């Protein structure tokens, strides 16, 4: 028996690969998104090798140079190479986006499911979430930023905490709707345990909106980081992120547009690619939609 299963799965292998290719053809947009994201991630990871200059090296004689053969993206107000800074900035922004999305989704999912399912926990947890959400995220982040020394990880924590309640509310709203649906009531009646219930019914139902939300969070985390930098409380100037490169460059937008153009384009492309990818994943993962196609 075990050999037949093994044989079956082995036999399925090539077909799966073929179906992936077919899927890529069927969903050209998510594929483009994924490729773009891979490119951006690669450029960020490869920054130390791709970059043409030291991103911290100041050549004050060459400050605010427009793009040229030596400085492909021009230089900033300190005479630092924008190309190298933009690549390096991607590393930090990517880390912030991914870390915030993963952390807030996981924490939010757990709290949301518990709150949506157990009425007693709901009362307590949702009040705390309400309290946390009631403090505007940026203000909470600013307060957290001034609490300790500025660093990338403080930025991650500061952006994650205000995001959690939003995930919780979304998950809980879906769980509430799903819970009342007849098939859940039936499943409870038969005596299915909570973990199975979650795995079989609630999780698949929350997954689609959660992916949309997680992509949104990753994108928004990168943006919120730029807002914090804009207000002067973001990633420390020592660490170039797209957010603080734009925030520093915005002072010079009228005389040196390249200071914000390139990091903005990169930031925009990244947000764009994550979102396209997320939408695509959602379409592929949603079982009902998949069935119909």
């Amino acid at each position, binding site marked *: 028996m075990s050999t037949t299963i093994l044989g079956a799965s082995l036999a399925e292998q090539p077909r799966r690969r073929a179906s992936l290719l077919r899927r890529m053809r069927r969903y050209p947009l998510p594929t483009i998104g994924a490729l773009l994201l891979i490119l951006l991630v690669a450029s960020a990871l490869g920054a130390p090798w791709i970059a043409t200059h030291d991103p911290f090296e100041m050549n004050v004689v060459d400050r605010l140079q427009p793009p040229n053969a030596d400085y492909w993206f021009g230089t900033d107000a300190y005479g630092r190479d924008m190309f190298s800074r933009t690549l390096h900035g991607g590393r930090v922004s990517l880390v912030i986006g991914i870390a915030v999305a993963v952390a807030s989704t996981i924490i939010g999912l757990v709290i949301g499911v518990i709150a949506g399912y157990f009425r007693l926990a709901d009362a307590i947890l949702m009040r705390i979430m309400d309290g946390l959400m009631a*403090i505007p995220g940026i203000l909470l982040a600013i307060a957290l930023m001034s609490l300790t020394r500025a660093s990338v990880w403080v930025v991650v924590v500061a952006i994650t905490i205000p995001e959690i309640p939003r995930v919780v509310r979304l998950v809980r709203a879906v769980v509430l709707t799903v819970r009342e649906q007849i098939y859940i009531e039936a499943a409870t009646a038969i005596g299915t345990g909570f973990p199975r219930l979650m795995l079989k019914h609630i999780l698949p139902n929350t997954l689609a909106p959660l992916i949309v939300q997680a992509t949104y969070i990753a994108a928004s985390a990168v943006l919120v980081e730029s807002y914090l930098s804009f207000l002067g409380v973001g990633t420390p100037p020592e660490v170039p992120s797209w957010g603080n490169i734009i925030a520093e460059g915005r002072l010079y937008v009228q005389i040196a547009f390249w200071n914000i153009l390139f990091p903005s384009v990169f930031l925009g492309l990244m947000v764009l690619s994550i979102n396209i990818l997320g939408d695509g994943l959602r379409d592929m993962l949603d079982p009902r939609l998949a069935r119909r196609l």
Partner: protein
Amino acid sequence: MWSYAIRRILATIPVLCVVAIIVFLLLRLSPGDPAAIIAGDNATVDDIAMIRAQLGLDRPLLQQFVFWLGQLLSGDFGNSIYLARPVIGLIMERVEPTLALSVTTMAFAMLLAIPMGVLAAWRAGSWVDQTIMALSVLAFSVPVFLIGYGLVIGFSLTLDLLPVQGFVSLSDDPLQFLRHLVLPTIALGLVYSALLARITRATMLETLNEDFIRTARAKGLAEPRVLLLHALKNASVPIVTTIGTGLALLIGGVVVTESVFAIPGIGRLTIEAVLQRDYPVIQGVILVIAAVYVFVNLAIDLAYPLLDPRIRF
């Protein structure tokens, strides 16, 4: 229903207390000293110490907290450290611009985003859908302050149509009031619409796949009727939830937008207070915003049964 509502309203009290404690501790534990700022750019250490003592900032934390709580219970938010004026008055002075901007932004976003989202879901996969989604993604891929500068350069400096900055009270000059709000509303509203359009589309897509929609279509109902009466109504719970929770995003965006367009609202008041550690002002503003927030979301929770009869309390 009523007993649930009353229970929920009572439950907001501990929430606000929790907010008050978090905010107080968070701020007082953070470094930075209002006395140093008041004393000025060339002050000596003795000057600073004298001012600190005068403001009562050298007293134990617990004593300061109890004092502040006592004030709060008698409805007094205390005085600003810098201006020696009641916090409530300062907030009232700044409410109008923020409220105006929030309302216009909300209206702009809903009018723009919900039809777009429904349209995109209805024609899912078509070029209409892809255009709308591409635009929405673009709108929230760009930081609010960049959209703001872009609008200023385009509409104010190049075309000379609208003012660059500032705010005029509705009671002073309704026309100028609107003119000053156009650019900030668009800058802030685009981001908010993008979020709303995406959520509308996502939930509509989900609902449109439900059996009852297929049944409705099979019955031969007109498509607008199916879309608006059946699908949108059923998709409204997540959409309304997003509008409510999006309020936090809105307030965050307001802080930045008010900075870009020099609008003297609550956002600017708060960021200035935070940067100079004007504790009573920060505490007051955050408590007021928290209260507004809690009540708006309470209202949304209570509205669920109206939107979706399957939900009961």
